[in-house]
């Protein structure tokens, strides 16, 4: 007993002494500093990493830029034999597949977000659905590719036969369908969180004024969750732009400009995946890297534009 009281009395004294008279800083304080420094380092590291990515892409695409100039962006021919490289068909392919996928997926992802966030936020069924959706995001994209090849392609081919176009089965439409399934979870989970966060008092106020459930969703939940839903959609668009493996397997890999949505096409990511291993010429290799740079920029631009749209929406 005696010793312990002594301890209690002595301890602050000792600490005080150490701080005052010795240059030694206690480890607890040092640890705080180190911890903070390491966090700052990690944060700066990420910024450096992104800039380094950009630098590498720019540096390695210089030979191609020298050889082709700005023509690279709107050139319609991709001819590795004669070193003529135009990214236009692939730029088009990337944008068409991504936006088509987005349009297909939006009704589903918003419905899921409302269902899970508003109608069934709890319970075993809600959990099951939630986990199933998270699983969709976790499935490796090559498996989507296989599924697309064996299930979706025959269905699309059947459709194409009815429309009287050449029944390839693979093409822009098939790629967009696969992509739309792959990106649903991103918008759905983010939307669900936001919908769930709608303040109860707002909803209750609306109910007490005699609103129906639909009216509450229409006039209270959706306006409140708008920016979150949009952010989720933007996230899924980013995913669609860069998706490589599944798209490569079902898009048909043709460097011609697609004439309709049934036609085969190519995206920037799939061209890189396809041709990188055997790209022997220096301009060829550099053109592929420049294609990567364009993809990087397109993704960045769409992200920035999307963020400003969200900002504007959430102000209202």
């Amino acid at each position: 007993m005696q010793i312990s009281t002594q301890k209690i009395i002595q301890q602050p004294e000792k600490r005080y002494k150490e701080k005052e008279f010795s240059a030694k800083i206690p480890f607890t304080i040092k640890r705080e500093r180190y911890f903070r420094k390491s966090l700052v380092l990690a944060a700066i590291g990420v910024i450096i990493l992104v800039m380094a990515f950009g630098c590498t892409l720019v540096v390695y695409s210089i030979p191609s830029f020298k050889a082709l100039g700005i023509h690279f962006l709107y050139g319609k021919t991709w001819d590795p034999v004669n070193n003529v490289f135009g990214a236009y068909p692939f730029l088009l392919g990337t944008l068409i597949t991504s936006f088509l996928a987005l349009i297909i997926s939006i009704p589903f992802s918003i419905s899921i977000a409302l269902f899970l966030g508003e109608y069934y936020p709890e319970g075993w069924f809600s959990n099951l659905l939630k986990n199933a959706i998270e699983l969709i995001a976790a499935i490796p994209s090559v498996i989507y590719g296989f599924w697309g090849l064996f299930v979706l392609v025959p269905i699309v081919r059947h459709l194409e036969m009815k429309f009287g176009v050449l029944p390839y089965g693979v093409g822009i439409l098939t790629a967009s369908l696969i992509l739309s399934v792959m990106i649903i979870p991103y918008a759905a989970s983010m939307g669900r969180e936001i919908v769930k966060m709608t303040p109860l008092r707002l909803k209750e106020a609306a109910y007490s004024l005699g609103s129906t459930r639909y009216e509450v969703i229409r006039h209270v939940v959706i306006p409140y969750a708008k920016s979150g839903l949009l952010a989720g959609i933007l996230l899924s668009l980013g995913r669609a732009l860069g998706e490589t493996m599944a798209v490569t397997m079902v898009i048909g890999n043709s460097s011609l400009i697609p004439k309709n949505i049934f036609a085969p096409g190519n995206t920037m990511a799939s061209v890189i995946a396809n041709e990188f291993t055997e790209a022997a010429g220096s301009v060829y290799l550099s053109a592929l890297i420049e294609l990567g740079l364009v993809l990087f920029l397109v993704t960045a631009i769409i992200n920035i534009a999307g963020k400003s749209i969200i900002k504007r929406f959430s102000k209202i």
Partner: protein
Amino acid sequence: MINTIHPKPRLLTIAAILLSAMSLLTACNGGSGNNSAKNSDSTTSNNNDDNTLLGAGSTFVYPLFSKLFYVYNQKTGIKINYQSIGSGGGILQLKNKTVDFGDSDAPLTDDQTKSMGADVLHVPMCSGAVVLSYNIPGVTDTLKLTPDVIASIYLGQITQWNDPKITSINPGVKLPKMQIAVAHRSDGSGTTNIFTDYLSKISPEWKTKVGKGTAVNWPAGLGGKGNEGVSGLIKQTPGGIGYIELAYAIQNKMLFARIQNESGNYITPSIASTSAAGNVQMPADSKVSLTNTDAANGYPISGFTWALIYKEQSYNGRSQKRAENLLNLLWWNIHEGQQYCAGLYYAPLSPEATTVAENILRSATYNGKPILK
């Protein structure tokens, strides 16, 4: 007794420090890509274990190489680490001197030869055939195709299976009125190089419009990734036609066409007819294209795959023992190793080609002195 207050650094702190250090390191590396490439140049010289050889290149030859290198390892204890990253990658790695040998399905172009900086030897390893496989509902007979028809199909000029040009050379086969769905490789590939090399030889129009290469600007059709991608397209699309490796077609029991060769004979692709295609007058450097062969019973769409090594083996501080091990391995490949070709549907080298390959291997030197005695 009060000193014990000082706690040990926590796991979290260490993890955070490590993480930030790692991300910084990666960032630095990314920023100076040239430096990291230079560092890896010395990999071979730092690798003191001369009993482990490194190779990289063609995916086409990979099944054969993995069999050969396994057997060779059992026999001699020498390990060979071969990465099938594609011919282009193999050439690049040899240029950076990170491997002892590369393997390419096409000989080096003039530009590539210049950029290598030193003499590179091409040692033929085996040859392989590219077949045209098809899927026409109701047709189980073997189709006959002429060079002209193949070129027209791939140029997008013949679009129906019942085109008179096809029916006239296939009497007795009932060809339906159906669109031809043309399939080609979407990834850069030695197989494409052999096929487009063939088309360039037999069709002047193809030569000027498209040309040859590991990847070309296809005027028609769909692209599939790898042999499996193309054969998937053929199998799934009614009316499909595409080119794939012979080995792949046989293993998957796919129909493939007999093709008219330079002498006018319709040749069924097989190991024997591919070997026969290689029975031609070989130049001393073995850099010969076998497509559209003169050999009367040779299949016209085939090609060698070459192991690539530097002629002067003393570079980057490599030991003489390492050079000897490499040369002995390649010597074994073109002799005893050839018996494993047929089982994997590769065509073994013809006697003529073996002699040329022997002379090429004998010309390799270490500090100017021949390595093989």
